[in-house]
């Protein structure tokens, strides 16, 4: 066992857990932060997509020991706080388009969408069809088309 300190959703946390436990389980099983979902555990389905220092990543594939005290992890629960509002514009767009069905993948979808918009902004361009095609998050309910619409809509508010 070892102690690991990092920031989650704006709060500094210290957990006592073995180095090689993947961050997804530290969040879910140790800290009780259940927004990031398990769908595969091997960085394929993307249901656990969260942000590290503002960039999308998949905590199922990162050892807790590889997260440092200066790292800021944001899960869906902390997304709205990053814009100091009740809801992030991407969440608003999701509700407006009634994107979710079962909802299991949607926290990951939204976190991926926000990161994608930030990425293309940083590249000084708008979202393209190819960008949307490149989203790897799976939705077994098949809400993909609404996701595409919501990403474009949510980007307008960001």
């Amino acid at each position, binding site marked *: 066992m070892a102690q690991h300190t990092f920031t989650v959703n704006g709060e500094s946390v210290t957990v006592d*857990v*073995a180095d*090689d436990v993947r961050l997804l*389980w*530290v969040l*879910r*099983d*140790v800290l009780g932060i*259940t927004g*990031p*979902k*398990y*769908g*595969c*555990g*091997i*960085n394929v*389905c993307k*249901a656990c997509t969260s942000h*590290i220092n503002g*960039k999308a*990543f*998949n*905590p*199922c*594939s*990162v050892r807790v020991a*590889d997260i440092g005290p200066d790292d800021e992890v944001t899960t*869906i*629960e902390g997304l*709205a706080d990053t814009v100091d509002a009740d*809801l992030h514009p991407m*969440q608003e767009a*999701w*509700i407006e388009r*009634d994107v*979710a*069905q*079962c*909802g*299991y*993948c*949607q*926290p990951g979808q939204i976190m991926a969408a926000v*990161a*994608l918009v930030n990425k293309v902004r940083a590249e000084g361009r708008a979202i393209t069809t190819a960008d*949307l*095609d*490149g989203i790897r*998050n*799976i939705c*077994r*309910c*098949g*809400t*993909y*088309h*609404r*996701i*595409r619409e919501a990403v474009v809509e949510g980007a307008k508010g960001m």
Partner: protein
Amino acid sequence: MTTVPDRARASSHLPPGPAGPDGRGVSRRGLIGWVLAGSTLAVAADLTVGAAPANAAVPSPPQVPELYDLGDLQTHSALPTSQLISITLDEQGVAHFAIPRAEVGQGITTAAAMLIAEELTLPVEKVRVTLAKARPELVFNQLTGGSNTMQSMFTPIRVAAATAKGRLLQAAAIELGAQVSSLVAKDGVVTGPTGSSVTYGALATLAASTETVAVEVALTPRSEFSVIGTPRGRDDALAAVTGRKQFTLDLQVPDALPTMVCRPPELNGSPRFVNNLAAVRAMPGVTDVVLVPTGVAVRAATFGQCIDAVRALDVQWNPGSVTGESDASILAELKAAELPMAVPSVPLLATTLDLRVEFMFRSSAALEPNCAIADVRSDRATVWAGLKAPIVAQRDIAEAVGLPQGAVTVNVVTGGGSFGHKLFGDAATEAAVISKAMGKPVKLLWHRADEPRQGRVHPMATSRVRATMLAGQVLTFEQRHTSVVTDFGHGLGERLTAMAAELPANLGGMGLSQSIFTLTQELPYDFGVVTQLLNEVDTRFNTGSMRNIYSPDVACANELAVDQIAKRLGQDPYTFRMGFLKNAKAKRCLAAVAKAGGWGRSLPAGVTQGIAVHTEYKGATAVLVELDTRPATVNRTVRNAVTGPRVTKAVIAVDVGLVVNPRGLEAQMMGGVSDGIALALTSSNHLQDGHFLEASWDNYFYTRQWNVPLEFSCIVMPSDEELPGGAGEAGVAASVAAVACAYARATGKVPTRFPVNHGTISFTPKTFVPPVPESPVDGLSSTF
């Protein structure tokens, strides 16, 4: 408490028991509801009100009395409220309803809230719909499947809500000193002729009853609907987008630690001996390791440590149920079981079309893998899981852990998708068995790799079609569908539960499957002599129906045949269908998609259209797609993905009768199209050497963003029907058929196997020992 003079005739003369009023023989404007004894207003309706008798669903079904031996039916039938569903109103004016169905993403809690809001004239936001625990007394009436929820619940929910409103108005009349007829109820407030008003919340206690009485109610006529039929977002949309929506794995049950199972390398194998039990028990975080029939269960502080322990286990395995079998050997078995055609004698000059299509095994896994929480004690058990047939699960769990059924509490949790998967309580029963073996609560999760390899699959099947034609007419159309046995252990078609399906009279399941096939398959065309028969063989697989039973495969084969018949007769696929369709709803849907989708419009070479229809669940669907088969599209590369031809446009029209929530219906149709694309082009399991190769979403190619139509539209057809039909599965069959037809037109060759890419294994299979892949550590190298 208050005694209310009953405008609606408090009917002490009505029989109070289950043999009492059932809605049949009572006009729809004079249905019977119940006011229940309680401290605040509680009302109920018989779940069978307005519905056909349960045993009308299937010919020669087991009679209800036959079931009494299996459950506690005699006890339950003595309860006057055995089939009642109830709505209660609290002092805040919020209506509560525990629906005896499972919400798995299909939107039934939202739709149910709308029905209650409509009859109660209450804002939808003031209606809370939760999921009922297993209620064994409901027998036939707690099964979520066959797209039946809105069909079966539409009238009972409204009757209960209307009963509540009647009672509230009576209480308000006393409170406001006015006649009931002079009161206006709106948004949870009753206003009298003088302008004075009282809220539902204030009336909740006043309207309560000290005894249970039956009352006659009238429902709001369709012409006055203000909620039903209006588009509405999901009731859990905010919870879903904020991560607050709780699924089974998110529940915190004391001491229910993460638990996973090391599963056998062959399908349905079993553990014989663990060579390194002590070593694994000593691994970090691990608390328990036990052998169970399905494998070796590991309980640990985190799921990550469970995965590590599962990978470390050195187990001697017994062989599975299909040792040595492969796709080819099962296909050969099906071919040998195909029933012969029996073409009636037709004129010598008639021409014959023969088509034989194969459909591969498909995984019905949802994104939320199989999971359940179980706490089994010596005298009782409590289970939490997403379950569409919770009564069956309750019975199975009781049997598996040796407790009376009444000692097992089964909590139905909102599911992360189902697609037929959650009809079976596999994980719930397994969790209970593990909890009993460990003597501790467990939170069981199937690893993703376990799902396609050991979980339920949609059966492999073949469909043969033979049609004869003469002088521009179709004289005969025969279909022989042959399938690996479909497990109906969860229920009999739309209405019956496993208690019925597993009765001795149905052993073997053959008569049952054929009954269900006959009842769900209809050919919507005037094709002369039509016969459709089913044969099923081989019970060794873990099967189930993935979002529709036989229809997607049957419709795919039929519509491919229809295109070929049209071609033989020199007709356009759309024109031919319009000429031969006998189902008016299907024709209207077809015309709608042809118009909206621009059937026959000029397209670049390599882009083709496909069009198809399907009729089921008292409704119809039609789909038009455009498929891009140009090399630049087909050969595009995406890492660890199948690309291939892309559906660039999809237009679906749906007629499901009365629509409760058009927005929810559109969502179901979009999902149906996504499923249809995958079924036609990309998604299947490969059986090789006694096991399925797939172990990841990058092995099992469900539709992904790079396969999604760039244009999608859904046309909800207007309907004069008084009742809703089925929606959840309705979008799949015509979608897969339309994509298949487009593919056949594009390639000039009718595919004989689906999905069309099955012949190529587009991934490197993961290991079978250990059964789950290692958790990666390189996640920080792919941030964006």
